[in-house]
């Protein structure tokens, strides 16, 4: 989106994180990449990753032994599809979410 936004809703932040994770594919996406892609502070990132894990929208995959990476679950993919529909609908009426 080309518009500048001063405020992102929580659901938008979660969706941005999930998109970053989706872009990582089956190998998973590490926290640093999610942090930069979703433009978050470290504390916020930790908090929201916990929330996504709790809700079963993402899961942890091991990458190179110790480092953690995340992939979307089927529920997460479904959520992202629904969010994309709602995002298009809202944007069509000029409503930012």
């Amino acid at each position: 989106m080309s518009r500048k936004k001063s405020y992102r809703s929580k659901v938008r932040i979660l969706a941005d994180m999930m998109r970053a994770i989706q872009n990582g594919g089956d190998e998973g996406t590490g926290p640093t990449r999610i942090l930069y892609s979703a433009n978050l502070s470290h504390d916020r990132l930790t908090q929201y990753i916990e929330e996504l894990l709790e809700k079963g929208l993402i899961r942890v995959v091991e990458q190179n032994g110790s480092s953690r990476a995340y992939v979307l679950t089927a529920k997460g993919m479904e959520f992202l599809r629904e969010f994309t529909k709602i995002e298009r609908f809202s944007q069509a009426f000029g409503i930012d979410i």
Partner: protein
Amino acid sequence: MMQEALYALIRFDLLLEAISGVIALMISHQANMAYQLTGEKRLSDLSTGFLVLSAGMFGRVVGTFYFFVIIGTAGLTPEAEMVRGIVTIAYGSARIMAYVLFAISTRRTIRKPTLANTPLMALPFLIDPNLEIVAIMILIIVVLQAMMNYFNVRTKFALYVLIAFSCLLLSHIFGIIALIEIRAYWWSQMAQFLGLISLLVMLIKAGRET
């Protein structure tokens, strides 16, 4: 014969209105779902706007049907006049209320009855020039907002919304013209119907494409 044709047209008019009401209800439902997920209040206002519009459309269908039941059984009685008056105000107010909500969220109708041409009078049923003017003024704002949004995001979904609100604006302009030229009433109804169809296409395409 002429009267039969007019009644057929009125039935067709009410069918279009009922379909438009269903589409408005679908848009309201989608906006409400979006509100439930995001908590964005403007989506709630948009949902309420389409719900009010839908209620007005269904109210007009039921009110017009009831009006014809009364005049079919008892003629153009004071009761029929009262029904027409109530539906006119309720329908026009519901639409204006809906447009105000559209304007907030995105930033039609009377003739003096004559016993000689009752069916013809029922065609531009519920056209009140004052309500039409108010609706036009609010819709100009809504269309301008939809236009600015389209030029900002340049998506086909925003274009469908711009087309829809422009059609609704056209329908009210034709509504005014219908007071002097009866054929404009059909252009008005068709413009409104096409506007709602445009929203339906947007709803379907936004849901299908990944």
